């Protein structure tokens, strides 16, 4: 088997994103520069009550935004449609100016935690609760977590392959890492890599019963933090081998330098308190990148007591006490399986604009959160290199490293 060649440089030539603060990368970046969060009352499940009622929802007609024919769109889940919107933007951007991407040789690599579970819940209610034996099944077909990759591949006529992973909240980070490996081993020539997840009842209820949801908009690293705010969205990067991107005449937005992946091997839902898994993932990303320093860390920063404390320790051990860190989840919540993709795109935008996004609502940092978390306002700064962290249930950790062009 050909080995992923770490001397092969990987270019980011397109980004696409949809989440509660914007339907594309321009809108998202404008919200970040304006320090404008997209968190409000939960509206997606009218008539159902939960212990908390805050969410970071995507508003608007996602089906229309996906630019897909009616019949085809009816067979797609909300996660699929979000994925198509983001992937379309990323590919459009990558095609801007240069020779078109060879999509027949491209792969789609998607991370998602729930896939079409929202639509599965609908079928469940009809068949199991109401007892309709012949409940319509067309949208449930899209429940498998392979569906967003398949939907993107179908919409963009991708012929090189599809890979999906459902590694909880580390999914999209893993999807990007995998894609880079397959470009470096020449098992693929172009990769559309990222993640997608729509809000659904099971996760909204589930994080509530775990008492991991903040009744107020989340305040990562804050002294008063009580948990996450659930969000939804999708984001993709277009990745290519550097030389191919140059030959195509593509505009290179940033370099993807490498990643690290690890497992806490500690607990099904809680992170290891010493942050050992997170530290190992960051160290892996630094080693693979051959990086000497990191200018900014886009943290996993969920707003839970355990994560923010463990991640802070891990960053101090792996990188040091002076690196600026922020949580963009304070803008668009925890988008679960999509988080690694959404935050990778935000990290790339930060590197492009040489501005680090802030952590919103950070009144005073908790005693166990001792880093510089860039409170309230974006910070223009020299950003040669930036790390994006994404951790998940099951103790899976992925850390992605990007560099300025």
């Amino acid at each position: 088997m050909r080995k992923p060649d770490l001397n092969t440089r990987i270019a980011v030539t397109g980004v696409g994103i949809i989440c509660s603060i914007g339907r594309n990368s321009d809108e998202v970046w404008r919200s970040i520069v304006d320090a404008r969060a997209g968190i409000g009352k939960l509206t997606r499940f009218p008539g159902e009550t939960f212990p908390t009622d805050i969410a970071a929802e995507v508003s608007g007609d996602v089906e229309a935004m996906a630019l897909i024919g009616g019949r085809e769109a009816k067979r797609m889940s909300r996660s699929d449609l979000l994925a198509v919107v983001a992937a379309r933007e990323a590919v459009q951007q990558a095609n801007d100016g240069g020779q078109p991407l060879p999509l027949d040789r491209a792969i789609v690599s998607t991370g998602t935690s729930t896939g079409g579970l929202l639509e599965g819940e609908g079928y469940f209610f009809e068949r199991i609760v109401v007892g309709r034996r012949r409940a319509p099944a067309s949208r449930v077909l899209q429940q498998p977590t392979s569906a967003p990759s398949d939907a993107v591949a179908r919409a963009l006529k991708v012929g090189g392959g599809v890979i999906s992973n459902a590694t909880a909240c580390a999914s999209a980070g893993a999807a990007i890492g995998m894609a880079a490996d397959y470009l470096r081993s020449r098992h693929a020539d172009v990769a559309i890599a990222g993640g997608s997840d729509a809000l659904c009842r099971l996760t909204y209820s589930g994080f509530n019963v775990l008492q991991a949801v903040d009744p107020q908009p989340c305040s990562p690293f804050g002294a008063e933090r009580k948990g996450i705010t659930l969000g939804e969205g999708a984001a993709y990067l277009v990745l290519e081998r550097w030389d191919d991107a140059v030959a195509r005449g593509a505009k290179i937005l940033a370099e993807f330098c490498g990643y690290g992946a690890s497992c806490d091997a500690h607990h099904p839902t809680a992170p290891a308190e010493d942050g050992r898994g997170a530290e190992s993932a960051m160290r892996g990303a630094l080693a693979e990148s051959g990086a000497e320093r990191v200018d900014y860390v886009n943290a996993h920063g969920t707003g839970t007591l355990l994560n923010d404390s463990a991640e802070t320790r891990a960053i101090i051990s792996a990188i040091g006490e002076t690196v600026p860190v922020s949580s963009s989840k304070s803008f668009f919540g925890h988008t679960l399986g999509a988080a690694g993709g959404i935050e990778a795109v935000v990290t790339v935008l930060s590197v492009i604009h040489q501005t680090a996004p802030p952590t919103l609502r950070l009144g005073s940092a908790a005693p166990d959160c001792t880093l510089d978390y860039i409170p309230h306002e974006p910070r223009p700064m020299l950003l040669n290199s930036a790390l994006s962290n994404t951790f998940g249930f099951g103790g899976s950790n992925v850390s992605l490293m990007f560099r300025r062009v």
Partner: protein
Amino acid sequence: MSHIAITGIGVIAPGAIGVDAFRSLLRSGESAIGDVDRFDTAGLSAHRAALVRNFNPRDFIPPMKMRRMNALSRFAVSAVKLALDDRGGDPPGANTGVAIGTAFGPVQTSVDYMREYVEKGAALAPPQLFAESVANAPGSHIAIEHGLRGFNVTVTQRESSALAAAMYASAQLVKGTVRAALFGGVEEVNEMIFSVLDRIGALAHSNGAVDERSRPFDRRRNGLVLGEGAAAFTLESSPAHEPYAYISGFGMSRDTTASISDWGSDHNAVVRAMRAAIDDAGIEPSMVDAIYASANSSQRADRLEYLAIQSLFAPVPPVVATKGYFGEYAAGGALQVAAAVLAMSDQTLHASAGFERADDEMRFEPIPESRGIALDNILVNSISAGGGIVSMVLSRESK
């Protein structure tokens, strides 16, 4: 050049617990498919599946830990224990990664959770069920049980899940980020998946002319039969003893004619994946001694595969169709891999199950009986609904 040696196998299969029993199942030529008694199939077209029976998770997992695991996790953790026992020697150590494939994941746990949600309310459903509702719960338990701190991913690419997991684990091993890796697959047959696949006509069913059966490549095939179970494999680059086989190449592609939930019609996409895997292994099509086919008894997928095989290979090497034994999605596709690995190790091909007569345009037949044969390279295919295709080459010697 880095080696990817398969040094241990663990199997929890329909009709077989453990690798020896699995060998016997494949030798028997008997299908492990039977009537579904786990849930009511009244009103559905299909009534049969390949279910794991006579499996006692207590044989593999301490009771206190078992209580925290759903059926999927129990299958997977047990298969990994069997694989590590089979491998023998000292444990592989913390610097070991885990890649598990599953087509549908813990759907039953989501259903159980939603049942409680409906009965008790959104605030009072059990957190334990939520923790187990994530697809990577089995992979997480495996890591915790054995202290494995390398990468830990759960690959979910329908029929290709196990092969795609094998591909990622192999890539990490050759890249050198881990010293060893575990890969495998896990699947569970449950009412939700069964009823949905039945509703769209994907499952084999009796229709007056034929009874309900898995018939890979047979002209009377009319759908797949669901299977379950788990299989796990240990991979390492410096094996302490003679391995079962080496992994030497992967190829992937996608059929752009596929709909989002069905196979496509362009067999050249399958050719591309097979050719890419063969190229990656550094061999030629003529050096492939046997093919462990993806064929799952569905009209379109099986046709795509035989058209692709007869287009790439002249003459066509022996083709083995295994899903008549244990159904589709069995162990996320990993039982088919286990069969191919055993074939390489035993230098013996298995009899295909469920085949009688080919389509008119099919120019070869899957081999009807077990056959001792010199095997240097075996191609393993997986063709997924949605269009994804992954092929792998197993070799007797490291390439």
